[in-house]
């Protein structure tokens, strides 16, 4: 789960990472009222998950209440412009009004999980404020990394070493170890997979402040902090995620593509393999769908309807290889789902093997469905049916 900037900064506050003074507002009137009460130079920032707010004109400055009202109205007037994952853009429901900082220098600081060393890695660069991918291309030597031994955890030398190794300006140094301590604390306490401060600002009066906040929380750890359920509620899902959630699937278990072969498989690996097989058979897939374990009738019906109603699929290729998922249950699910669905009917191609395969095939046969033998055969058949 990716957090919005204002949520990220709230977590920064809790772990003692300095952030600019700010107010989260939902209307232009609220923004104007806040600026009226707190005179000064403010910046109004759209609260969205999509990147590119600056380029999209969704970050604007204001020196008084009238300006604040005007720029907020402007920001809220239109959604973020569309991109591939968000073909309708992203609605803007709130802004963050924040003090403008008199910035001397901008650095970059992040913590993430490194799969190879199986450790959290802290990354620091003296080039902040630009996309870190750009820094990595232009100044790869500028990125200092430290892989943390989680048995020890954070210790201040890590911050010191990173500051020296990345040649951070001495102005950062004194406060920097506490910043790294903060992101490590946040990372573990709240189960984050990524915490990024970009830019980490050094102000002209010598303060080190997190000017932006990008945090990805581990969905599997959300249960440890029940309040995050509320935080999640305000986060927008993209359209595929919203459809997946409505069908009772994990939000990452469904994604649409422009083809006409609908697919469903159990396990992300097999679901990807099914897509590959359809491509290899000369077809174009309509969707990726991992039904997960426990494919009962209700679940199968919902998946079928999701594909039939929300993609242009002409055929539904069901590819099940049973391990923890039992073939007889899946078969029962398919038969019952097809009985119960009220959606339009498209042909099914079923490949069912693995645990309780025999029982499953018997159930399908009894319902007049003949499963194919292999994935490639199924893909070929599905592509044929789609082109028919």
């Amino acid at each position, binding site marked *: 789960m*990716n957090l919005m900037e204002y949520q990220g900064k709230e977590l920064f506050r809790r772990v003692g990472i300095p952030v600019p003074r700010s107010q989260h507002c939902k209307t232009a009137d609220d923004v104007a009222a806040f600026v009226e009460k707190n005179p000064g130079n403010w910046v109004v920032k759209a609260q969205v998950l999509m990147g590119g707010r600056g380029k999209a004109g969704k970050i604007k400055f204001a020196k008084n209440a009238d300006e604040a009202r005007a720029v907020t109205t402007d920001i809220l007037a239109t959604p973020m412009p569309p991109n591939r*994952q968000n073909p309708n853009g992203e609605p803007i429901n709130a802004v963050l009004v924040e003090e403008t900082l008199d910035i001397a220098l901008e650095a970059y600081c*992040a*913590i*993430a*999980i*490194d*799969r*190879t060393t*199986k*450790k959290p*890695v802290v*990354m620091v660069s003296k080039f902040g404020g630009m996309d*870190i*991918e750009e820094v*990595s291309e232009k100044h790869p030597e500028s*990125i200092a*990394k430290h892989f943390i*031994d*989680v*048995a020890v955890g954070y210790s201040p030398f890590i911050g010191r070493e990173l500051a020296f190794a990345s040649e951070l300006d001495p102005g950062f140094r004194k406060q920097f170890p506490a910043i790294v301590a903060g992101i490590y604390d946040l*990372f*573990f306490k709240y*189960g984050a*997979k*990524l915490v*990024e401060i970009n830019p980490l600002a050094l102000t002209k009066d010598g303060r080190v402040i997190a000017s932006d906040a990008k945090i*990805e929380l*581990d969905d*599997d*750890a959300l249960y*440890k902090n029940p309040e995050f359920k509320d935080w999640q509620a305000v986060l927008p899902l993209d359209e595929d995620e919203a459809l997946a959630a409505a069908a009772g699937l994990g939000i990452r278990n469904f*994604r649409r*593509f422009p083809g006409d072969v609908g697919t469903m*498989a*159990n*396990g*992300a*690996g*097999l679901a*990807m*393999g099914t*897509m*590959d097989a359809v*491509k*290899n058979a000369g077809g174009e897939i309509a969707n*990726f769908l991992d039904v997960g*374990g426990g494919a009962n009738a209700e679940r199968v019906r919902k998946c079928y309807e999701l594909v039939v109603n929300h993609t242009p699929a002409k055929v539904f290729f069901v590819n*099940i*290889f*049973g*391990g*923890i*998922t039992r073939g007889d249950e899946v078969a029962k699910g398919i038969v019952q789902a097809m009985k119960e669905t009220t959606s339009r009917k498209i042909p099914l191609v079923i490949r069912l*093997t*693995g*645990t309780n*395969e025999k029982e499953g095939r018997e159930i399908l046969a009894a319902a007049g469905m003949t499963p194919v033998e292999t*994935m*490639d055969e199924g893909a070929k058949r599905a592509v044929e049916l789609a082109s028919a």
Partner: protein
Amino acid sequence: MSIFLDKNSKVIVQGITGGEGSYHTSRMLAYGTNIVGGVTPGKGGQKTEHGLPVFDTVKNAVNATGATHTVIFVPPPFAADALYEAHEAGITFAVCITEGVPVHDMLKVVATTHGMRIIGPNCPGLISPGRSSVGIMPGHVFKEGNVGLISRSGTLTYEVVDLLTRAGFGQSTCVGIGGDPIIGTTFVDCLREFKNDPQTDAVVVCGEIGGSDEEDAAAFIKAHMPEMPIVAFIGGRNAPPGKSLGHAGAIISGTFGTPQSKINAFKAAGVPVADRPSEIPALLGERLAVRV
């Protein structure tokens, strides 16, 4: 021979009285796995429906049975605890089936359970055909033989095994290492074992997009196993880019993680990469023929 387990490996089941635990215990027993008992706190002294003794703690189970292997069927919030308990009780090999274990739990587990090999989490376990199955793999598609298999995916593994078996290639050991960001045992860990296993004459590596485990595996093969016939497959070559770890993830792994990076790495190591699972048996046959 086989890697990680053999017919005599004494296995306990953590969570043996739960639904999944009980069901898969039956299946493992049917396969011939030497399951010596299970653990469910508060049910110590009882017998399971399979007639196995239940213990309150792993320590009690180990003391009573001499178990060295465990397979864990507990809900995600309790998986790390189960692994710590196994480690402290002297278990040396643990398979964690549980899906949805917080990644931070695993970061700490892998950093602190030295001396215990962990397969998973979020994995189907492993099987040494004709000897033992520890996990949830469907035993009937496997056949004893001389091909080792390592896979990040669950169901895709069965797919590949099925193809191998149908093509006449039996397996020494098949390991589903799991697809989570932090896993106990990587491709390289398994390759090192296969290298030293006299029964294993060839290896199939089933990778996936993302991460850099495949690149590490290719580098290991190039350096340490140039003579071993090995075939690779990369799943998800047509997969959506999806929501990544974010920018920082790209920096850690550099250009790694893309299908092309993985394919290039394997090719540079002299490992042919199948375009689809069904090509694997033929490529394997070629490699084994070259060797002979």
